[in-house]
C-alpha cells in the first residue's frame, strides 16, 4: 500500500536576506523516485539540505514517514541515506574507518553490516582502496564511499544530490539499478540531477524548481501536457518550464554568428 514518505510544506530557506527556497511544497510517496530538477542556483541543494537536517529552514514543515524533522530530528535522520552534492568526508580516515564511524553512529551490528558492506564494496569496486586515506581517492571513489555510507543501513528514504557526478559507467549503472530496486521494494527516493536523460528514465515523478519555487511537477507525460508538447524530451520541457528556451536559442545563435 502506498504511503506518504516525505511531506514538504511551505519550506523557505534563507541565506541572510537571500531567499534560496521560497514557500516550496511537495510530497513523495513510497515506491516513488522523485527527481528534483532545476537550473544552477535554483534551490535544489538547499531543499535537500533542509530535508536531511543540515540547513535549518526559515519556515515550513518537513515530515518523513510521519515524523517531523523539527520534533524528532534523530528519528528522521535514522530513516535517511544521504549523498551530498559536494562530497566532503573526513579526509584523513580510510573508507574502512569512515564507514566504521557511520555504522557506529547509526547503531548497526557488526555481523549484519559486514555482509552488506562486502556486497556494496564489491559492487562499487573499491575494495583495493579500502585502507587508503579518503584524501588520496579520486572524486569518483569518494563519491562511491559516500554512496555506500548512504546505503549501509538500508534506509527507507534515499536522498541523493547529484549522485552520478564522477562515477564511472559501471558504478553509475549499478547505482541507478539500486535506486530502482530500492523504490520497487517500497522505499522512496529524492534525487537531484542535471542529466535529463537519467531523470527521464529513472524518475517516476519530477519536480522542477526555479528561483526557489516549484514551477512544474508530475510525471514526464504530465509535464509534456503542461508545456503542450507531445514529443518533447525532459530537457525541452525543463527549458520551457524554467523559461530558458528563448534565451538559450539567442545565445546559440550569437555563438554561431561569430
Amino acid at each position: 500500500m502506498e504511503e506518504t514518505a516525505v511531506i514538504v510544506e511551505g519550506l523557505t530557506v534563507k541565506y541572510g536576506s537571500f531567499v534560496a527556497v521560497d514557500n516550496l511544497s511537495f510530497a513523495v510517496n513510497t515506491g516513488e523516485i522523485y527527481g528534483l530538477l532545476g537550473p544552477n542556483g535554483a534551490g535544489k541543494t538547499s531543499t535537500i539540505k533542509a530535508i536531511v537536517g543540515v540547513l535549518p529552514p526559515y519556515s515550513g514543515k518537513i515530515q518523513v514517514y510521519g515524523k517531523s524533522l523539527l520534533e524528532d530530528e534523530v528519528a528522521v535522520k535514522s530513516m535517511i541515506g544521504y549523498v551530498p552534492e559536494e562530497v566532503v568526508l573526513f579526509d584523513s580516515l580510510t573508507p574502512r574507518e569512515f564507514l566504521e564511524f557511520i555504522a557506529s553512529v547509526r547503531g548497526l551490528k557488526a555481523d549484519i553490516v559486514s555482509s552488506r558492506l562486502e556486497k556494496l564494496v564489491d559492487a562499487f569496486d573499491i575494495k583495493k582502496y579500502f585502507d587508503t586515506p579518503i584524501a588520496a581517492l579520486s572524486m569518483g571513489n569518494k563519491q562511491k564511499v559516500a554512496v555506500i555510507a548512504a546505503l549501509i543501513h538500508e534506509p527507507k528514504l534515499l536522498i541523493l544530490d547529484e549522485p552520478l557526478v564522477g562515477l564511472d559507467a559501471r558504478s553509475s549503472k549499478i547505482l541507478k539499478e539500486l535506486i530502482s530496486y530500492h523504490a520497487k521494494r517500497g522505499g522512496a527516493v529524492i534525487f537531484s540531477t542535471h542529466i535529463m536523460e537519467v531523470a527521464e528514465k529513472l524518475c517516476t515523478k519530477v519536480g522542477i524548481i526555479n528561483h526557489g519555487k516549484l514551477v512544474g511537477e508530475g510525471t514526464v507525460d504530465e509535464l509534456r501536457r503542461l508545456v503542450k508538447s507531445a514529443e518533447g524530451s525532459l530537457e525541452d520541457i525543463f527549458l520551457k518550464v524554467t523559461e530558458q528556451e528563448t534565451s538559450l536559442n539567442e545565445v546559440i545563435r550569437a555563438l554561431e554568428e561569430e
Partner: protein
Amino acid sequence: MKFMELWRISNKVYKEVSFQSIFALRGGASLPQKDKNVLQIAKRAETNTLISKILTTIFIVVFGLSVFIHSIAGYGAGASREFAMIGGATAFFAALLFLMAIMGLQVTTSLISSRILDVLGHLPLSRNEISRIALITFIRIFDIPLFVALVAFPIIYAIQSGSAVGSFISFIGIAVTEIFALTFTIGLARFFYSSVLRGGGRSKASTLLRFIFLIVWILPTLGVYLVINLAGQIATLFASMAQTLQISNYIVIIYPFSFSLLMSNFAFPGQLSNLTIGLSAAASVGYVILGAYCLKHIGASIRRVFSEAEEKAAMHAQIMEVSIQPSRSWLGIIRKDLRIASRSPAYASLFLLPAIQTVVLMLSFLSLGDISLNITIGILFGISFVSLMLPPTLLAIEGLASSYTRSLPLRRRTMIVAKAAVATLTYTLSLLILLIAAVFLRRNFSLILTFGAMHIFSIAAASMLVLSIFVKKLWEEGFAMGNIYARLGTFICILFPGVLMALAPLITASIVFFIASAQVIPVFFTVAFLEFGIMTIIVLRQ
C-alpha cells in the same frame, strides 16, 4: 619569469590560502548562510590572516626576547656579562628556531591542504617557477614575524652591546635561523605527506611510523613550552655552556653558538682566543652557505610535497577483507577523533599539551620544597586551562565534514559526552604523569594529586559547558568549526564560561582555606561534584 610577476602570482596563492582557512570555518557548502557575498568573506579572511600574523609576531618577540633579556638581567648572578650575552643570544636563536618551526608546522598544513599548487601545475609555468612561487607564498604567510624578528633582535643587541658589527652578525644569524626553521618545517611536512599519510588504517609499521613522526612533530611544541616556562633557566644554561668554551673548542662550531660567540667577540673584544674566533667565524660562514643552499631548495621541496603526497597516497595495499567493527555511537566518535588527531600533527600536539605542561611544571618545581595549597591551585589552574583548549579542538576536527556529520542521526548529547570524555581523560592522564614523576623523584605531590583528582569532575563539567555552547552554534547556526582559533573573539567568549567553571572550586577552596582550613577538601569536592552533576543533567536533556 621576472620576480615581480612571481610576486604577483604568489599574492593570488597567498589570498587563496587565507580564504581557505576561513572557508573551513564556515563549513564549506553552508558558506553563504551568514554572509552576503563572497568578497566580504575573502576580505575578512585577509584580515584574519593579518591578525594571526601580528599575534604570531607578538608571541615570537615577547617570548624570544624574554629569553635574551632574562640572561642580560641576571648576568651578575653567575656568568660574566659577555657570557651572559652569548648565552642570551644563543637562547634567542634556539627559541626563534623552535617558535618559527611550530608556527611553520601549522601554516604548512594549511598550505598543503589548500592544494593550490595543483592549480598552478596546470598553468604554463615551469617547475622552477612553481617552486619559486611556492617559496614566496610560504614566506608571505610568515612575512611580518620573519621581518620583525630580523629587525628587533639586532636593534636590542646593538643597544645592549653597543656593537654595530655584532648587531649585523646577529641579523645574519637570525636570517639563517629563520631559513633553518622553514627548512625543518618543510622537511617534516614532506616526510609526513609522503610517508605517514599513506599509511591508512591497519598496517602496524605505518602506525609506528605515525607515532614516531608525531613525537618528532611535537618536539617544537615542547621547545616552545620550555622557552615560555623556563626562559631564565635556558639562558643561564646556555651562558654556562658558553663558559665551557674555554675548556672545549668543539662547542664553538655548533649552531647557534658560533654566531653568538662571533657577535660577542665584536661586542667585547679581546676576551676570546684567536682559535675560538677563527673557528666560530668559519662555522658561521658554513652555516650561512648551508642556509643559502636550504633557501634555494625550500621552494622545490614545497612543490614536491604536493606531488609526493599524491603519488604515495595513491599507492594501495592488498585488501583481504572489508569487515568493520562498529561500536557504541559515543565510542565511534572518540575513535574517529583519535584517528584523525593521530594523522594531524596540529591536533595531536594539543592532546599532549597538558601532559607536556605537567612535565614542564614538574621541572619548575624541582627546586621547591613542599607544594603548598596556593601552588597546587596555581598548577591545577594551569593544567585545567590548557585542558580546556581541547574541547574546541575536538570539534574543530569535524572540519568541513561537519555538514555531513549534521546529516547523521546523532544526538547533541552523544557528541558532547564523547568529546568531553576525551578532554577529561587527557586531564586525568596529565595527573597520572605527575603521579609517576612524583614517585620517581620521591617528591610529595599529594596535595596536587588529591585536589587534581577531585578537580576531574570540574574539568568534565567545564568541558561539557564549552562543548554545549559550541555544539549549539554548530547545530543551530550552521557554524562549522574548521580552524576556530582564527576566530579568537568567538573562541574566547565561549571558552570563558568554561574557564570560570573550572576555576570555581579552586577559588572557593582558596577562600575556605582562610575561614576553615579543615573544610577545604569537602568544600572543593562538593563544588566540583555539583558542577558535574548540574552539567550532566543539562547535557542529558539535549
